[in-house]
């Protein structure tokens, strides 16, 4: 689990979501001592914000590859699917 990872921003969305689930399950289990549960809650909040940020950042951006003479991608251009 990404439990020990302090830098939440480096965790993938999926791991963050799983970690958040884990936090909630622990909290719901009621087995966590009070002090620890506060830390856990804070961590859960960070994970939630991380996930939320990823969702909020979701926006369609469609580009197409412009290949160089060597056939390798050189750059991208906006792509209009209607064309």
């Amino acid at each position, binding site marked *: 689990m990404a439990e020990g990872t302090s830098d939440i921003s480096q965790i*993938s*969305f*999926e791991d963050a*979501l799983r970690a*958040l*689930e884990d*936090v*909630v399950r622990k*909290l*719901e289990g*009621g087995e*966590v*001592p*009070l002090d620890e*549960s506060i830390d856990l*809650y804070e961590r*859960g*909040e960070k994970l*939630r914000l991380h*996930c*939320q940020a*990823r*969702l909020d950042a*979701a*926006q*369609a*951006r*469609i*580009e*197409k*590859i412009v*290949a160089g003479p060597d*056939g*390798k*991608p*050189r*750059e*991208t251009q906006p*792509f209009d*699917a*209607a*064309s």
Partner: protein
Amino acid sequence: MPQPPLFESKGEPEQSGLVARSRRGDNAEPLTITQISASLKRTVEDRFGHVRLRGELSGVKRAASGHLYCALKDDKAVIDGVMWKGAAGALPFVPEDGIEVVATGKVTTYAGRSKYQIVIDSMEIAGEGALLALLEKTRLRLEAEGLFDPARKRALPFLPQTIGVVTSPTGAVIRDILHRLADRFPSHVIVWPVLVQGQGAAEQVANAVRGFSSIERGGKVPRPDLVIVARGGGSVEDLWGFNDEMVVRAIAESTIPIISAVGHETDTTLCDYAADRRAPTPTAAAEIAVPVRSELQAAIDDLAHRKKRCASRPVTLGRERLEARAGRLPRPESLLQAQTQRLDEMAERLKRGLKDRAVQARERLQGDSAKLSGPLLRARWTSARDRLAAARLVPTLPQRRLAGDRQRFDALARLYASLDPEAPLQRGFVLVKDADGRLVRSRTVGATQPLLEVKFADGTLAVVPQAHADPPQPSAPLPPSRKAKRAKSASAAAQDDLFG
């Protein structure tokens, strides 16, 4: 030969002579081999300058030069074939033994080996059945190579940041994909436009797949973390490019996970086998590629809600537990109750005890005081006085008695003095005693004693009777008593000294 020769000259049996010679009336020189070969070549090429042959490929061999050698056969005959490098390179499929093909070309001869063969300009697969047979062969070959091994399949990212799409830039496929992605999770999509059908399609697809893999992370063009290779439905022939070994290999070697969505659900291309995941349609590929944003949002909201609800839980639980324990604590006043009660009881008993003691004492006092009544005391005093008075104590009574007693005492004193055994000593008598202090009353007794003690009024003297003095004693030893006395006094003195 049993058959008679065609040109028989009568009476000239030397036709089978030892040396060939020109015949009469025959000006035709024998043909050289080259001549006949050239003649054959011309004839064959003129006659079969353009033929279409249907047959099964066998002995397919691609030489290092790039030329393709093979044979075409049916159940009775076989004809060698060759496909020069240029034509062979343009083949839309990889010729394999056993594939039924229709080859177009011209028949020619190879004089050097007395052979004829067809030079194939183009070759097509003879019908869909044959195409499928080829497909199966290729599939088995690549499978044996391990290209479709399930162990090679990589997990798709849960939520890709960038999605690469290899497909035709026009048409329904890209639109379907983009629409579905937008519905589910608007994402960054990079399209690599390719031909998806016809000449060069396979090469373009393969290059695009490899091209995406070659993008460095952090470069100018973002590297996709998922690639979709897509094409709409079509005939087996239309989809053929996606069965191309080049495409299959490019997909298998891709460093980015790939979803293959080629054709309809019923169409399966080798590209589907090589991909990490097969989607039945391009739309389905988009669904596989990304989760639904709103569902994720709901999941996060649900978790956040549950988390919030949990947050106060330990506090609530703690409070409940605290209260449960606090409820069980005895009230402070009840803690002291027993002691208070005991104190009260003791105080009561103390008071009562004191009172009781006073009552008891008073009772005893009163019991005694009954005996201490005044008249009683007075009566005793009166009787005592009466008895004192009755005693009639007068001085003459004892005086008279005293005078009488004194007279009797004087008489007794005088008598006593006259009876003192040592009184006569004053008058010159002596007492004789033996060594033990016993009185010696007769001479007989005295004569037996070794030593006698003679007591005078002023002291004693040790005497040795004559009978014992015969061996005269050097000097009369001091009487042992005296000696003892002296020793005794000396020791007493020593003792005095000790104490002094």
